[in-house]
């Protein structure tokens, strides 16, 4: 089971710039390594991350094998309204992992 950790402030002032940190457990297999039997280990990475604030995508990233295992991303956004931040990770197998966080804006 994949575990994701996200760090979003619970409350923020309107117009305040908040920092968001997101990390997910994933091997990020590069596809450049050989296994013990001499067979290449197939690539399996998370190639896309996106963060939506309400209905709007505020940040996205295309990731390549040079991103470390258990990819960590930190970015920021402007706290506009109270709502939900939705985080989505998509891997090579087509699986998506979704996490969300609530924020209250005063």
């Amino acid at each position, binding site marked *: 089971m994949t575990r994701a950790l996200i760090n979003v402030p619970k409350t923020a002032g309107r117009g305040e710039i908040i920092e968001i940190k997101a990390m997910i457990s994933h091997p990020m297999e590069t596809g450049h390594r050989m296994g013990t039997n001499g067979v290449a280990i197939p690539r399996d990475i998370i190639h896309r991350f996106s963060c939506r604030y309400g209905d709007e995508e505020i*940040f996205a990233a295309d990731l390549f094998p040079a991103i*470390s295992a258990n990819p960590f991303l930190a*970015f*920021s956004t402007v706290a506009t309204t109270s709502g939900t931040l939705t985080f989505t990770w998509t891997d090579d197998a087509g699986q998506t992992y979704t996490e969300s966080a609530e924020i209250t804006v005063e």
Partner: protein
Amino acid sequence: MRDETYRKPGAFGRRDFLVAAAAGLVVLALPARAAARPSLDEAVRSFTGGAEAPAGGMRLEIPSLVENGNAVGVTVSVDSAMSADDHVRRIALFNEMNPQADIAVFHLGPRAGRARIATRIRLATAQTVIAVAEMGDGSFRSSETNVIVTLAACIEDLS
């Protein structure tokens, strides 16, 4: 003198072994990286569409001496007001010596508030890393750093 009747059905004979061994050698002889990776400059140009990306106006922060290439902390910040008129559209990271030049492309916009991102990357060896930012007006800028890596990524034990 070879009598096929002595072979059990499905048994793996000496000839089969030799054929398999020869095939194995051919596979081993193939270069590990069949496709040549683009140079750092080519990678940057494919991102900018051939446009120049002059240095300055942004910072790429990486420790200059890295002990473990498997997880190297990277922070990129761009001098920008992040308003509707003046903002960063994309930030891309490229490396010089890994098997693949791309590291990541980050999509930002005025909603980001601050043009600053952080992540952790893999570095196969000591090399140059470059960050390129695409601004809202279509211009590009860049920042590069040399990194010395003492323990390379991709060589960890596979057991």
